[in-house]
């Protein structure tokens, strides 16, 4: 028993030494095996169309740090991309918005093999630290994958005679469901705007109360414009509720929130809103927001935003309340009048 224990103690340093030696040798072998497979300095694989399930041309660029005699370049496209036969990978070295300073890839030609996702192109010696590019020019060669993803990984590798892997680097590309659209077509959207009536008689004004539209008029919007709508308002050139005969006008500061009081002159427009349906949320401009307390803001002859919405509208209604108050010294007349123009539009 004692002897066995002694042997065990003696064997342990030996075992440790053997294990260390093996690990060193294994590491060296591993390092040797990958000694030349360093990363390419710069790699770009650019797809001309990144919409899913779309045939596309593209560009490959790379720069190597190694001073060797390259014979091939292999491009491994992301899993899920469909590749044509080797003969479909025709190439060009026309500078199609390549990165600045890029040169034509020497010896590049039509692919010689396609194995799974890996495409082999011929190449000749690359000068270290020089960015080389080529384009594959036939969209039948590559079709993007069927699902949208932000991270589709592939690689570019250079080979020397053997062929033996020389340098390698991964690239990442994307696919999207909602591809680009040219600005060439009108959008078939409709916008309808209805003003309920063209007059808003305020009747006789008195010092004892604020007079408000007896039947508030409405602006009704219906639209499928996805970004919503806006409504602006302005007065005619004569500011306020004006009397020609008295040469006088009741007015409040334009675009500034105001609350009228009986006996104090003022003339404002208040707006409240409601909506039957649609994706939009209506926002009444703060100054014009009517909360039932003789409030709103004055207008002038500049178009001012009354309300807006950020989505579609099914019977979006703006209720317009014009309100006026007079004082004891407001000149009497029967021709106090005003014209307010409302303009509506769908937003792009």
């Amino acid at each position: 028993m004692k002897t066995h224990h002694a042997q065990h103690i003696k064997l342990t340093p030996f075992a440790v030494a053997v294990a260390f030696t093996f690990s060193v040798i294994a590491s060296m072998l591993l390092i040797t095996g990958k000694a030349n497979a360093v990363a390419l300095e710069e790699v770009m694989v650019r797809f001309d169309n990144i919409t899913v399930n779309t045939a596309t041309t593209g560009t490959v660029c790379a720069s190597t740090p190694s001073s060797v005699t390259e014979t091939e370049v292999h491009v491994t496209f992301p899993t899920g991309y469909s590749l044509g036969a080797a003969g479909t990978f025709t190439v060009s070295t026309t500078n199609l918005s390549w990165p600045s300073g890029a040169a034509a890839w020497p010896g590049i030609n039509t692919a010689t093999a396609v194995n799974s996702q890996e495409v082999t192109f011929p190449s000749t010696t690359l000068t270290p630290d020089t960015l080389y590019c080529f384009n594959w020019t036939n969209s039948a060669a590559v079709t993007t994958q069927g699902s949208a993803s932000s991270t589709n990984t592939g690689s570019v590798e250079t080979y020397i005679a053997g062929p033996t892997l020389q340098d390698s680097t991964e690239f990442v590309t994307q696919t999207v469901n909602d591809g680009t659209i040219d600005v060439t077509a009108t959008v078939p959207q409709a916008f309808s705007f209805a003003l309920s009536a063209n007059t808003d008689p305020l009747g006789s004004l008195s010092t004892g109360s604020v007079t408000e539209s007896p039947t508030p008029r409405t602006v009704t919007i219906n639209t499928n414009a996805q970004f919503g709508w806006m409504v602006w308002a302005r007065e005619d050139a004569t500011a306020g509720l004006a009397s020609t005969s008295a040469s006088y006008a009741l007015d409040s500061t334009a675009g500034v929130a105001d609350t009228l009081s009986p006996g104090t002159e003022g003339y404002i427009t208040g707006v409240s809103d409601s909506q039957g349906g649609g994706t939009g949320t209506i926002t009444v401009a703060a100054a014009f927001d009517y909360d039932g307390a003789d409030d709103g803001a004055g207008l002038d002859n500049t178009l001012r935003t009354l309300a807006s919405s950020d989505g579609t509208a099914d019977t979006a209604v703006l209720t317009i309340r014009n309100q006026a108050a007079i004082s004891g010294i407001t000149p009497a007349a029967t021709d106090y009048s005003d014209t307010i123009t409302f303009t509506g539009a769908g937003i792009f």
Partner: protein
Amino acid sequence: MKGLFKRGGLVLGVAVALIGVVGTITYAQNVTRSEGFALQVSPATLVDTVKPGQKKTLDLRIENQSINRETLQIQLREFNVDKKTGEIDMLDTEPVGVGEWVTFSDPVFTLDSGEAMKQEISVDLPQETGFAYSFAVVISRTSESVAERGTTLSGSVAVFALINVDRPGATRSFEITDVSVPGVLEYLPADIDITFYNSGNTFVQPAGNVFIQRGSDDNVPIATIPVNDKKGYLFPDTPRTMTASWNEGFPVYKSVTDADGQQRQELVWDWSKISDFRIGHYVAKVVAVYDDGERDIPVVREVSFWVIPWRIILFVMAVVVVLGIGFTTIWRNTHGVVKRKLKKNTKS
């Protein structure tokens, strides 16, 4: 046989008449004619690309939806997009120079109640032009009968026109200057605000997707949502924020319209979507794309956020605690009874 045909013809005639009546009623229900000013225009926005020296016609359908016969005019107007807020300022002035190359087929026209017409807007750009033009066409009454007393209300409808010029030097490009989302959410939706800056000189429509995933480099996203589902445009040299909403959650806040026509957020528990329960850390990776005229250019940016349904977590914890206390109490009681019985049996 002849009689059969006669009877058949009669039945067919009645059926056609009925369909006509029903159709008319349906149409009448869809369009509520206003006593005031009411127009529908389509499209809501005119968008096209034109070449210098090439005449192009844009069609605008205008329908009179009021009960009145209307004599209308169509005019060019200027508008500005605020570079900070994105708000549209309508101006009551004609855009400088645009009137020289934009003309209308019918500058003044009359529409009976319910009648529609096609206004042809001719765009005939001179050789020397810019790269993008924006203006509004405004349709209004030629004259308004002004009330002698009170307020006269006048309506008008604006249609925005965005014209890209296809000529050498026209560039399409944008940058993403910001992507933001609230850092911590209790429930979805997660509204991802993407701020674009149009660094080109033409109108651009961003495309692409927002990928919701656990990690930045995941190649299978949890959800894929459009970057610009509303198909909005970016103005040259102008920022614009668009929102992509991730709303596939359980429970999820949804916008509902109450009886008063006011919108509010309501938490919806759709048990068929219990698999969409969200908790933990997420990455929203934006892959926005534009076509620079030759290829898709992806612009990638990401932001991370947390979904912590803290009320559900507290509820589950409370249930666990209550159950734990309950089980402990039952165990103690049962254990005590058994112990007492055992003691009793031992004594006897």
